């Protein structure tokens, strides 16, 4: 974007951007048109296959009435709660494993046993142990996203270049400061990758967790509940919001953090 602003004359930039928008919009127009034709053809009942108009109306109605935002906010908070917990616990365990051979020997087998089971499979167990509702949902999300964070933090700390440690030692850094000023920043590309993967996993299962855990609000619950009343349009509106949040997390949260740290340091290429 900077390049275009510096090197391109303003009108050319405008038309280029317009063309890019048109090119990106085209496939959606095609798919939308097909959807609309099928919906209006009467091949399927309108209730099960709503027109785009229905979906849009439902989206606007639910947004204006505040129902959709409420669901979305609850979901985001639940995500952040679970993910935040996973980030704190996961990075701590991973870094500990990377620093101490003994911790690695003890923790790695346990983690390796628990990790290959898809997180959602633990859901019924968590529901029995912690009861249906918020606690189970948050703990489950945290548990599921923790493994990617642990593995990547562990790898990151182990991958710190020997030469950095030597340089730091030669310049008089003690263990504590070597950890803070060398090991942590050096492991950061891996830790961020782990957090990114963890968040993606948390996001992928949160919706299902909300369906299973019987929480009173949340997008997963919204679309699951809408099924009872054949509110396919509300369901689709919910899915749209889920897609937007997913996209926003990826594009605006992690990419920004990476651009400000590891990309600026030349330790990782920008994903954008």
């Amino acid at each position, binding site marked *: 974007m900077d390049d275009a602003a510096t090197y391109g004359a303003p009108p050319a930039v405008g038309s280029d951007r317009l063309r890019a928008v048109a090119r990106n919009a085209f496939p*959606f127009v095609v798919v939308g048109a097909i959807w609309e034709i099928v919906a209006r053809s009467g091949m399927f009942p309108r209730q099960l296959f709503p027109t785009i108009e229905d979906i849009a109306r439902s989206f606007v109605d639910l947004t204006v009435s505040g129902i959709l935002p409420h669901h979305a906010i609850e979901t985001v908070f639940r995500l952040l709660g679970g993910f935040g917990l996973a980030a704190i616990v996961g990075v701590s365990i991973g870094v500990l494993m990377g620093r101490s051979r003994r911790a690695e020997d003890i923790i790695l087998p346990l983690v390796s046993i628990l990790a290959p*089971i898809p997180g959602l*499979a633990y859901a019924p167990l968590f529901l029995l142990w912690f009861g249906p509702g918020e606690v189970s949902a948050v703990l489950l999300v945290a548990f599921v996203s923790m493994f990617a964070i642990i593995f990547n933090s562990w790898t990151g700390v182990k991958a710190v270049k020997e030469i950095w440690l030597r340089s730091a030692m030669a310049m008089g850094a003690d263990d504590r400061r070597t950890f803070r000023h060398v090991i942590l920043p050096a492991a950061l590309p891996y830790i961020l990758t782990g957090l990114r993967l963890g968040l993606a996993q948390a996001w*992928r299962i949160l919706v299902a967790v909300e369906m299973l855990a019987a929480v009173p609000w949340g997008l997963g619950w919204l679309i699951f509940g*809408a099924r009872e009343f054949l509110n396919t349009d509300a369901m689709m509106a919910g899915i749209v919001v889920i*897609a937007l949040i997913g996209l926003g997390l990826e594009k605006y949260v992690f990419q920004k953090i990476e651009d400000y740290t590891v990309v600026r340091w030349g330790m990782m290429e920008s994903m954008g």
Partner: protein
Amino acid sequence: MTDSAQRRRTLIRGLLSIAAAAAFYQAVSMAGLFPKVLLPPIPVVLTTLWGMLADGTMLQHAGATLYRVLIGFGLAIAVGTPIGIAMARFKAVENFFLPLVSALMPIPSFSLVPLFMLWFGIGNVTTILIVFYAATFPMLFNTWTGVRSVNPLWLRAAGAMGADERRLFWKVIVPGASPFIITGMRQAFLRSWIAVVGAEMIAASDFGLGWVIFDSKEFLQTDIMMASLVVIGVIGYVFERLVFGSIERATVYRWGMVRMAKG
């Protein structure tokens, strides 16, 4: 310290750690602090697992789950790989699919479960389609990246040696992109495995490992739950390590193409 002594110590510590964790669980379970149905003692879980394996019910559930996952995964390869290749080779295809893929990818497959339940009812069709949806994107995305990253030098060299378009494709592009394609398959299977368990919990009837776990919640049969968890873990592990691991060893490792497409 020598290497083998270190390795032995790692092994001993690992075994001790697992034994300690199991003993701790067993102690909590026996202590009666919590209702025993919620924390079944380990021998009970093992007995249940053995019983279900012996009378064939576990195999039936595992079979149903594997059937769903393999069909969905196979469909995902059949659809994702060609689209990924076409996207990398033809700009027009890329222009059409890339925006769609970027928009659909962040939608978790589970959010489509209720919709598919309305459309296709509960059972095989819905679960297979959810698996398909979950697995297609990693397959497509990795193939696309892989084909684009084929070293242009190889193409030029093969062209100079008289390879035509078709042979260029099969002899250079496909093997060149294979580390990414294999990584894509690995990721796709992982996603499929997660998707099938979740989809079965919400939308399956009568059979499947996910279904049996969720169903036993109703009757507080935590021993069945845990026995099924073990089976899920073992199958996932076997595919991840043995199947994909050996594919990798037979191809990209042997060629010295270290996994470039890690992640």
